[in-house]
């Protein structure tokens, strides 16, 4: 009996993985078909954006933070995870309507579509990260990554945080559209300046540091940088705080998703079809 239930659970899990993979692949195919440069364009577009930011930052402030990590890598370790986080969260907030035609296949649920999109975004930004790491390693001709396991773990943690926040906002935003609008605005604007992308946490004066340290992305980004050089100082940064946010946001998101999934399918009520008691 237990064996059969385990087998069933395993087959369901494998099916789930297959569906999420299929959604990610379809999204990649669609983006390739729509863009000018095919699959390469899907990777080149965010790479160009990040390269522009890098160039601007280096031009404006010269090579400021090169003491512990190569400055290009240091900046890439801020920009890439942050843009990945914002992309995943924003797509999760607005991705259900976009993928509406996919739900023609009833086996596919909105969560699968969101997870597929998040997976693809993580793959794209992960590839970019790899390009930067290998590029800098080739430039300096030495191993620049101290603990690859921690780096991968932190990188995935930031992606999961984006997914959790996006999922929670999607459901809450369905009930309160204002919340979705606020969070979408905050994601790219305020968080960009408070996530330790342009500056390390150690240069922030102690009296202001706690204003930055509320932001879990700042923790994630600084922990990621430390995985490249253990001597990189990260005062006040806590892995526990970061992972509590990751687990909490995903747990909360899945909990409210489970209780409100129908909301994402519900059609808009046509005027004149309300029942007598509906307005109560």
């Amino acid at each position, binding site marked *: 009996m237990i064996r059969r239930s385990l087998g069933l659970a395993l*087959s369901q899990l*494998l*099916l789930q993985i*297959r*569906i999420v*993979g*299929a959604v990610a*692949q*379809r999204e990649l*195919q*669609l983006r390739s*078909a*729509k863009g000018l440069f095919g699959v390469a364009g899907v990777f080149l577009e965010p790479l160009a954006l990040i390269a522009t930011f890098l160039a601007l930052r280096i031009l404006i402030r010269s090579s400021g933070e090169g003491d512990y990590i190569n400055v290009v890598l240091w900046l890439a370790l801020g920009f890439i995870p942050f843009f990945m986080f914002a992309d995943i969260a924003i797509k999760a907030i607005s991705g259900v309507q976009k993928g509406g*035609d*996919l739900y*023609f*296949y*009833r*086996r*596919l649920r909105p969560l699968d579509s969101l997870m597929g999109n998040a997976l693809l975004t993580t793959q794209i930004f992960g590839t970019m990260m790899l390009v930067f790491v290998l590029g800098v390693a080739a430039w300096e001709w030495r191993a620049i990554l101290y603990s690859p396991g921690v780096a991968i773990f932190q990188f995935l943690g930031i992606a999961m945080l984006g997914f959790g926040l996006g999922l929670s906002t999607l459901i809450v935003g369905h009930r309160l559209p204002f919340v979705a609008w606020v969070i979408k605005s905050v994601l790219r604007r305020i968080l960009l300046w408070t996530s330790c992308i342009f500056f390390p946490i150690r240069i922030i004066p102690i009296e202001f540091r706690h204003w930055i340290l509320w932001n879990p992305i700042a923790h994630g980004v600084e922990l990621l940088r430390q995985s490249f050089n253990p001597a990189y100082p990260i005062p006040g940064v806590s892995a526990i705080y970061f992972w509590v946010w990751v687990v909490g946001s995903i747990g909360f998101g899945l909990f409210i998703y489970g209780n409100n999934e*129908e909301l994402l*399918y*519900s*059609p808009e*009520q*046509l*005027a*004149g*079809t309300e*029942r007598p008691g509906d307005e109560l």
Partner: protein
Amino acid sequence: MQNVASAHGSIVLEARQASKFLAHGVGEVKKAFVDLDLDVHRGQRIAIFSVNPYEARTLLDCLSGVEQPDQGSVLHHGLVSWPLGANQAFHKKLSGYMNARFAAEIYSQSGSIEHDLLLIQELTGADDRTFHEPLSSWRVPMRKSLELAVSLAFEFDVTLVGKISGWDHRAVHPASVRIRDLFERRIDGRTLLIAAPGQNRLALDYCDEGMVILDGRLAYRGDPEVCQLMVKEETQRLKAERRQRVNARISRLVADVEGDDFDSEDPDMEDAQESYSDADLFPGSSSMPFSESVVASNRQDRPV
């Protein structure tokens, strides 16, 4: 829509107090079905008849889960297909192979994706090159074949059949026979629901039970032949009613215009003209007011 694990006896599909309304012009709605309670048991083969095709097809869409009912609920106790014959998930920028592969990743049995893709390509009749070209470059009949092939490639507990175009189940062409064989294999021992409007022969050949939706209500459930007769009679009755209304309207207009010729200054006649309301003559119609157009054209024809 909810998927509930068995423990519901042999019921595979049920609707509870389900209603669906469709937008019809500005600020108007028409009802597809209202307060529908329906139990479909394992192995049943039901044809859905209706005077207006949209009633049966909308019901099928809601039962499949492609559409959500506006009120009430639809419960699935097994794997339910989408309405065969259409596929809204296809993307024209993607190739036939990519679209088929996506469906196969979701619905194929583990390890049989490649086999299913070969079957789809064979049923579609596309060569390797065409199969890997974007759907936008495909001819419409071949695209329809692909939609049907993708529907038939997978096994469902409940198969729903919407409007199928491009396949006659009685044809003796080898491709049609191949599709028929596969269709019969797919529904063997399983549940089948067919939207009968436009494909009565298919419905009568494969279903042993029918149901009639009249004016949004379930009017009858039983013998499909009886259902077909009911719909036929209802259609004729509606046609006769409409003809009567139009005739009455025309004769009143003719009488009007003749009276107007004799006494064009009579204010009572103008009042009478205005009293012919369109709603009275064409209930439910939102088209251009017929009376005004006829009167206007008569007035233009009249010698000055």
